């Protein structure tokens, strides 16, 4: 069984909501759309107070090339454009829409029939994806059209679909594959067409045997798409790790990107969103969100309109448990702990994880015993203990020399540290500071 070649850990999977059919969540009373839901420049609002919008109306346009448009997921009136505490814990500008009815834009094809044929040219496909505001649905939210436009001198050789879902607890992608396999495969072939390649891979970890079986059966009609079962290993869902696992190529250190080894990696959720955008004219305004946790009464997968507050999802899954200690947007390895549960669902919200107070508290830090376990699990071949120490000492020059920018912040080092050291806290600080120094240096040049 294939997997990536350096490091890796295997956290307890805890896929509590696996096999739960996707439920459609009721509309919220008010939907909130933060203008910065993706990597890159924030979107600029197109609507103002009092404007009427429909489901699928563009309410904010991309603020640059690396940016994405935002579409309303509800119909109603714009209440205000104001700030809301988003997943980062800070107040960011957002559009508030009061929901009235459920009226869709007419251009959207709401039928469920599978549309296989796509006669568009590659650039038309990319334009359509861009117009639908599609971003990476795995959590990083990198605008998809940017990834589909290789920089000059680079040629894509294959499309790799990330259906790994290596984060414990989360099952959104798994369930999506079980229910929308045909649509995903069409989406993948559209993506392949967009970057003009003839080979597509879908990497699935073998803790989802039902999805592997179903996808393999369906993919028989698509000779160019191969389903690749992978050994369960975190962080296989990392772009670079997945490329290594599937086609045995390693992306060199930054600033190199996957396209430098000829790979375009997209999340399976993105493939579905691409299908809907291109074949059904449906912009990205809803997604599957897993609500889970050991104390949650009814862990579920919800089809959720964006802008719905997380509290509504938690309510639908049986309410916030008494012993809640931490609410995490995303999975337990890379998700963000939230300040409050009114944070709206955004394009990258793959899950809401509720941890009880016992699980949530970190253990006290002990001195480093130099056991080197962090070194052996680091999937990027770095020395986390060293990076953390140097960052704490603010020796940014050496932090940079030790390749801190290669860190993918997967958290394997801190997960495995027997001394419970806050390795990634410090490494992130170092990466952030060094990133700033490098940008300043490049700006000077």
């Amino acid at each position, binding site marked *: 069984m294939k997997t990536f070649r350096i490091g890796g850990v295997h956290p307890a999977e805890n896929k509590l909501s696996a096999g739960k059919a996707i439920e459609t969540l009721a509309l919220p009373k008010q939907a909130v759309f933060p203008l910065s839901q993706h990597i890159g420049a924030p979107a600029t609002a197109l609507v103002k107070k009092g404007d009427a919008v429909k489901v699928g109306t563009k309410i904010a346009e991309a603020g640059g090339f690396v940016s994405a448009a935002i579409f309303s997921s509800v119909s109603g009136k714009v209440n205000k454009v104001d700030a809301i505490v988003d997943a980062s*814990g800070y*107040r960011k500008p957002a559009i508030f829409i009061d929901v009235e009815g459920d009226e869709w834009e007419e251009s959207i094809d709401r039928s469920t029939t599978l549309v296989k044929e796509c006669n568009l040219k590659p650039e038309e496909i990319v334009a359509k994806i861009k117009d639908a505001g599609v971003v990476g649905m795995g959590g990083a939210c990198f605008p998809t059209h940017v990834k589909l436009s290789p920089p000059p001198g680079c040629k894509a050789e294959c499309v790799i679909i990330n259906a790994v879902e290596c984060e414990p607890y989360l099952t959104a992608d798994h369930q999506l594959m079980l229910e929308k396999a045909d649509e995903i495969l069409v989406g993948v072939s559209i993506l392949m067409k967009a970057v003009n390649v003839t080979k597509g891979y879908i990497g699935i970890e073998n803790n989802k045997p039902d999805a592997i079986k179903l996808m393999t059966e369906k993919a028989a009609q698509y000779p160019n798409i191969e389903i690749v079962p992978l050994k369960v290993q975190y962080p296989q869902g990392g772009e670079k790790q997945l490329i290594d696992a599937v086609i045995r190529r390693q992306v060199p250190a930054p600033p190199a990107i996957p396209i430098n080894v000829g790979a375009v990696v997209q999340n399976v959720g993105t493939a579905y969103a691409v299908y809907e955008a291109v074949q059904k004219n449906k912009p990205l305004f809803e997604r599957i969100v897993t609500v889970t946790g050991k104390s949650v009464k009814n862990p579920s997968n919800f089809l959720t309109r964006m802008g719905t507050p997380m509290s509504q999802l938690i309510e639908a899954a049986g309410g916030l448990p008494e012993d809640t200690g931490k609410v995490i947007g995303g999975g337990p390895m890379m998700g963000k702990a939230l*300040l409050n549960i009114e944070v709206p669902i955004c394009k990258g919200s793959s899950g809401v994880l509720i941890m009880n107070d016992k699980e*949530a508290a970190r253990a006290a830090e002990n001195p480093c015993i130099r056991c080197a376990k962090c070194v052996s699990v680091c999937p990027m071949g770095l020395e986390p203990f060293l990076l953390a120490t140097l960052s704490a000492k603010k020796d940014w020059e050496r932090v940079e020399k030790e390749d801190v920018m290669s860190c993918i912040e997967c958290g394997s080092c801190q997960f495995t540290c027997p001394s419970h050291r806050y390795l990634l806290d410090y490494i992130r*600080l170092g990466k952030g500071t060094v990133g700033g120094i490098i940008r300043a240096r490049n700006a000077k040049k």
Partner: protein
Amino acid sequence: MDLILIAVISLGAIGLISAVILYAASKKFAVYEDPRIAQVAEVLPQANCGGCGFPGCAGFAGACVKAADSGSLEGLLCPGGGASCMEKIASILGMEAVASEPKIAVVRCNGSCENRPRIAKYDGAQSCAIAHTTSGGETACTFGCLGCGDCVAACKFDAIHMNPETGLPEVDEDKCTACGACVKACPRFIIEIRPKGKNNRRMVVMCVNKDKGAIANKACKVSCIGCGKCVKVCPFEAITLENNLAYIDPAKCKSCRKCEPECPKGAIHAINFPPRKPKAEAPVADAAPKAAPAPKAEAPKAEA
């Protein structure tokens, strides 16, 4: 006898050869350094705080000598040593010291545990820089002090300490040299280097919250809500309101104290002023009937 002779000769020879090598090396690799640099460096505090803007005390000494050669010491100040140190440097270099205003670091946040209710619990490394990236902090105020003490760690003069009761750092006025290390360490730019003021008395807005009034009001008892009352009352146009936050320009402020009672939230502090005379207290209560207890409670702290 022979043995002693051999020892003396051989050791003597080794010593002689080494001396020749050392002499040759010291000639060959000699670097000329202006002797005044060492003299200047001697009177500097040698804390290498970097507050002067040069890499360490040696760097500053070099800059002083260079500046003296080009005619003026203007713009050079060792914040650690202060005016007396600059006078000594000037006398070494045969120049006249340029007087500069003494300054001090001011922590512009009064969101103590009592004033600013905690809504979450931060669990992570004891570092403001990291806490700042984690989320908005433990309170609803995303601008205020995080309380992990990065400024305390950055201070080389032992002049800033956390007060465990308030959870806020406090500047020791006698020790602070206004080197600015704490300013750089604070990820939220709460600390500001301000002129010490006449008789050490100064007016400061003790808040950096830029949220709208209602949100700032809810987050903290003593936040600036951007109401603008202080701007109106100031006779010297020293107070400006930007992004829902008032700022007192120390260059224009004449310390008339008119703004202090005007602030409905008690966010404006008059530091090191004598307590107001009893008759002055009536208008305080009148001006801000609801918030009256807050400034009263703050007053003794501000004096301390």
